[in-house]
């Protein structure tokens, strides 16, 4: 559910540290009908232009705090709220080229009352915002 709404429109942009473009980021919303503790987020798999980003390269940030995907799984008292746009940060020296990119985000959730871990995928063409 909410597949098409995971990637927040027009949110793809390069990120810089100390003047150097060190990666890119995009907004993402939880594909579920209510907020969840971060620890149930088992994966946020990012693929850009067909290239799967290594898990270790991905960071999740919300309300000023940032976690690696492994740290996310320990964050039992923090939340990804319903409809809240989190930042998905990808370490990628030099960032992305300007223009259109095919971005795919697959969110895997460990929902307690479901007898499976749901994986919801959103794939969009997004232009790199200036």
């Amino acid at each position, binding site marked *: 559910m*909410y*597949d098409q709404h995971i990637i927040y429109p027009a949110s793809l942009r390069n990120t810089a540290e100390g003047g150097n473009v060190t990666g890119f980021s995009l907004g993402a919303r939880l594909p579920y009908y*209510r907020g969840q503790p971060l*620890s*149930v987020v088992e994966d946020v798999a990012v693929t850009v232009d067909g290239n799967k980003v290594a898990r270790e390269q991905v960071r999740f940030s919300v309300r000023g705090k940032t976690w690696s995907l492994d740290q996310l*799984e320990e964050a039992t008292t923090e939340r990804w709220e319903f*409809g809240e746009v989190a930042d998905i940060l990808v370490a990628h020296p030099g960032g992305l080229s300007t223009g259109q990119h095919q971005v795919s985000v697959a969110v895997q959730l460990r929902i307690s009352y479901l007898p499976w871990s749901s994986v919801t995928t959103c794939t969009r063409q997004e232009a790199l915002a200036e």
Partner: protein
Amino acid sequence: MKATHQIKRGVSLYSYQYETFLRKMTLDDCIAHAAGLGAKGIEVLAEQSFTSFPEVPQAQIDGWFASLERHGAYAQCHDMFLDTKLYKHRKLSFDEMVASMQRDLHFAHKLGCKTMRIIVNTPPEVVVACVPLAEKLDIRMGIEVHSPFHFDHPWILRYTELTRATGSDHVGYIPDMGMYTKNYPRVFRDRFLRLGATPAIVDFILEAHAARVLTDYLLMDIRKMGANPVDLQMAETTRHNIWSNPRRMLEFMPWIFHIHAKFYEIDDSGKEPAIPYEEIIPVLIEGGYTGHLSSEYEGQRHIEDAFEVDGREQVRRQHEMFKRLLGEV
């Protein structure tokens, strides 16, 4: 026709989830819309309508009560969930589950709710341990009897055994009408077709659902027909969207505190094609049900890929249907 019953109407804000997600409706909008239909009893999912649960900021609690008052509505049901898989490598312990459920009872009380939905995967022993607090807070807790569970399912049999043994009138059932899926929901069918299900196999699955064929038989048959992964996924939904006998509610009626009026679609003729409310409501009247029919619209996820979602219109239509079936018009 004068209403010969005390069944009330309400709405679970779950029905407005899509508009809430896209920030098209605020909590106040949701309560206003429900109340405007005469559906005064509001059912709320804390993690949908508030943030930082269970430490919800007081401003949001105050907003909740202000909206109820503004629109002449009242708090009816808090939907409790149990995060048994909060931790990656272990389940919640018994004590942690009891603490979690008691946290929800206190939250339901803070919101002024009179009933609390217990998510079906909550172990009965945990529910029994919370009966004293429920009685103290005067909140009637009901396990959501939700498809594929039903009143005669072994899990629910054990729940009945343990909860009736408490002798308490504060523990019972909140049945979800999704266990009375008489006809395979059209919105499911159409979405699977859009996803690439094989038309001939889709028809085979619909016939099997109508004939109440065991899912395991159906899966074997369609594999022989060359079913693709989408076909198999559609067939698997027959395991989780069962038909069962609405009259089985009669035996449990004294302990049915609230009802999830699940629905996938109200068509242009004002009917729910999959769930026969024209059969269900007479049973509730016969059994002397006095609680709420709480709209629980769940069609969004089956149509969002191809259609505009309009929770308000769907809820409005359901209450038009209820008014007719409840003799309010």
